[in-house]
């Protein structure tokens, strides 16, 4: 199972990547459903920068272009984005 991860703004800058594919087959085998929290946990294992960036209290998660909580369930082909609070207008 593979999904697209996108990072924006200060998060993209801190982690040096804007978009990549993430294979979740081992997580999905271990449990029936994979949620945003499980993906954050997986990505946090990539190193201290990832752990710090993805565990900021004000981090926003958007699944398929809609803001969600960490219990949102992720499916094959989904697009999951992480970013700081928005500052448009």
């Amino acid at each position, binding site marked *: 199972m593979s999904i697209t991860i*996108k990072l*924006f*703004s*200060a998060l993209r800058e801190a982690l040096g990547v804007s978009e990549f594919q993430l294979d979740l087959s081992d997580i999905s085998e271990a449990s029936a459903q994979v949620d945003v929290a499980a993906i954050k946990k997986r990505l946090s294992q990539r190193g201290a920068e990832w752990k710090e960036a993805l565990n900021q209290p*004000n981090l926003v998660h*958007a699944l398929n*272009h*809609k*803001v969600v909580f960490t219990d949102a369930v992720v499916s094959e082909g989904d697009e999951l*984005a992480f*970013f*700081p*609070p*928005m*500052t*448009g*207008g």
Partner: protein
Amino acid sequence: MSVSLQSEAIDVAAEYAQLVGDSPGAAVATFTGYVRDHSDAHAVTELELEHYPEMARKVLGELGQSAAERFGLCSWRIVHRFGRLAVSETIVWVGAVADHRGEAISACELMMDTLKTDAPFWKREQGPTGEQWVASRDSDTERRARWQSRETQ
């Protein structure tokens, strides 16, 4: 009844003419936002706006539609820029046409208050001491929350 995400300057006169031309109504309200030459603590010489195109288009489209339903608008339009912007350039323009001024003005206010916190854009300011990402403001979150509390009344 549309959204534009664009790097080029906003032609406010053309946007106004198109908005009114679409569906002449009795009341037209618009808001234009420009790049300030200062933030709370320092001078600003340039602004860069990063955005998440697919999500921004979706969020702004839903926002316009929701304002139209709530205030019975005849027409609406949201234009938001991205990329590098000089001081005094336009950043955002919203317009609403309704039968009465209250609905048109409130719709513009709702669209602006909501897009500040819900549309995926991030400002990066350049000043004499370097560049920095703009932090979200509690005052923007509070203004956004006022509309949610009104929805539940």
